[in-house]
């Protein structure tokens, strides 16, 4: 038998760490909500597919410094272009983004002028008109809405009340924290990022289901023990399992980030963050919420009992 080192003796007090975790999660969610508000106000970096504009993938068979190219663009009157260098086996490859459509020929002409004597090949062009961007925004909004509805309905059917609420909070926590991460990392908010968010919303429940199923099983077996202990024991018991399932998903994502195309780089990066957050939340957020819930219920029951005892006798 082989197990990860140090995991044999598993009696970490996850429940005891819940206030620290709640504080940390509070910060994550605050950043995420701030990012959502900023995007709502139009101050976020929306992807070109959502707002319309131009993305060009250009190969130059000679190396020209990025500074010279940027200066050339300013002189040429397209100073607002975002210019980024991307990996290429030969020569130089640039990704040029403009939040305005209809200028692909100007960009090409300008580059030919800047890179004197080099062959400028336009490898890819993506030009999105405002109407198409609006349509895509609409599609994304519908996708998010449906995901929220279906996942909520699923949780509602799958879990009893308190587990359902905790699972829903944990999932929302993961997605909001992930939006915050994308915002802080200054990532363009594209349809592919929305796809990553939805994928995480679906996948983040995996770990939560695993933890909750164990808590329910242990509740039946050891119903006489304190709720805290049952939750703690459950998390510890399935610790390696939630860790391993997350790790096996992280491995291909890391490979996509390192070896994949620039198109899927941000997607993989945001999803990696999401899965790390999701694993954290299934240990430190979802289950401790149950504990808090149970405490409140007990306190309320005690208060009720006390209140009924204190009632004046007639």
């Amino acid at each position: 038998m082989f197990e990860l080192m140090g995991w044999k003796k598993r009696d970490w007090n996850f429940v005891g760490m819940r206030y620290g975790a709640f504080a940390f999660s509070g910060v994550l969610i605050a950043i995420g909500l701030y990012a959502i508000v900023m995007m709502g106000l139009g101050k976020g970096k929306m992807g070109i597919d959502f707002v319309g504009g131009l993305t060009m993938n250009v190969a130059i068979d000679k190396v020209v410094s990025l500074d010279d190219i940027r200066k050339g663009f300013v002189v040429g009157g397209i100073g607002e272009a975002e210019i980024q260098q991307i990996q290429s086996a030969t020569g130089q490859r640039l990704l040029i983004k403009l939040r305005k459509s209809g200028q692909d020929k100007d960009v090409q002409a300008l580059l030919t002028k800047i890179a004197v004597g080099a062959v400028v090949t336009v490898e890819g062009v993506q030009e999105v008109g405002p109407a198409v961007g609006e349509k895509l925004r609409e599609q994304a909004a519908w996708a998010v809405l449906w995901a929220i509805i279906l996942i909520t309905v699923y949780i509602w059917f799958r879990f009893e009340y308190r587990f359902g609420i905790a699972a829903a909070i944990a999932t929302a926590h993961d997605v909001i924290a992930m939006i915050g991460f994308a915002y802080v990392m200054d990532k363009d908010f594209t349809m592919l990022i929305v796809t990553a968010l939805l994928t995480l919303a679906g996948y983040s429940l995996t770990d939560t289901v695993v933890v909750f199923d164990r808590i329910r099983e242990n509740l039946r077996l050891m119903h006489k023990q304190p709720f805290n202990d049952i939750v703690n024991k459950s998390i510890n018991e399935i610790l390696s399992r939630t860790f391993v399932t997350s790790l096996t998903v992280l491995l291909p994502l890391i490979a996509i980030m390192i070896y994949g195309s620039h198109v899927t780089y941000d997607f993989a990066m945001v999803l990696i963050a999401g899965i790390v957050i999701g694993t954290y939340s299934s240990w430190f957020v979802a289950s401790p919420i149950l504990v808090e819930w149970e405490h409140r219920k007990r306190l309320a029951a005690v208060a009720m009992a006390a209140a009924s005892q204190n009632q004046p006798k007639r």
Partner: protein
Amino acid sequence: MIARYRDIILAVLAALTLIAGVSIYPLNKKINLGLDLQGGMQLVLEVETDKLPKGTTVQDACERAIEIIRNRVDAIGVAEPLIQKQGESWITIQLPGIKDPQKAIDLIGQTALLEFKLVSPKALDEVIDKDGNPVAKKLGKDLEVVAGKDIGSRYLLEKLQLMTGASLATASVSTGEMGEPVVSFQMTNEGGRAFAKLTGDHVNRQLAIVLDGKVYSAPVIRSRIGGGSGIIEGRFSWDEARNLALVLRAGALPAPVRIINKEVVGPSLGKDSIDRGLKAAVFGTMLVMLFMAFYYRVSGVIANVALAINFLFLLAILSWLKATLTLPGIAGIALTMGMAVDGNVLILERIREELRSGKTVRVAIDNGYSRALATVVDSHVTTLLTAAILFFLGSGPIKGFAVTLFWGVFLSLFTAIVITRAVFEMRKQHVGLSI
């Protein structure tokens, strides 16, 4: 599970694997690649509905436009073009592997509305003010000022459309008097008769040949022209003349169209994306397999075999469904390889746990499957749900991701439950089980 049942499952599995293997060979012919991988162009055109001729519905105009664009695309010679209506007034055109995107754009985007109109006998000077702008009051409702193809030239035309390109039977490139390229056209019989009457009625007047709102030439009608043939001059290059002849043959669009979305992927960019995508997927899957073999030993290797079969089935399903593989789709395959082992991880961990608590191998395996099964299935339902949402609401590359995510996860449930189970049933006999 009795032994006979197990044998049947293994036999069916072997047969399915064989079928899957055969059905995806050769792979490059059986898997549809998206435009982002094979290179090509996608355009979304918007029919300018405010410029529709009276009495035409948007629906009719779109259908007619699609038909004409199809004719034009066929004339360029693109293998497997996809042209379809999207929403109310949009047309999506996919041209895989196209060599010269700009030429295709010029051809497809051109309205090619050919009109014959009379030049007014009035002088242009009579209707413009001192800045050269036409004065609406002086023009009245019958006259219009139209730009000529030569920069700066303008003509005063009578608005009445005498004939259109709809009367043309064919058009081709020929050589003018000076050896320059011109486009000659031949009208239909009916069109020829109308043209003869038109020219007979207006001898000594100037007849303007207007293409897409520009006057190309305005020759004087010397006498009645029978036979219904003529030429369009306009200082063309040979390429321009050929394109014009082509679009005139294919017919005019019912209304102008505007390109609202354009995606061009060059062949080398597509190949680069395939290479990088494959490299990432192969490395990712290898990492997962190495980890499984290292962490779970023999059971991990069994999970890896199941993973390989899973992968094979996924490719087979993609080819059966004629699904399109895109770059995010490749990422989706890599991702599902990581998710696919989840089921096995949950079951193996459960078996380990049962063994640790002193159960026999046989009981541990049975318990492992029966107790972990619900969790395995349930934990994947929401991923399937989100994949389905992305499939129905996403487009292009995203749809490609949704397809691979959905089937990858779906198959992983099948492999975790059926394949590894069958193998474990065989291993029950062994006493020293390494998990």
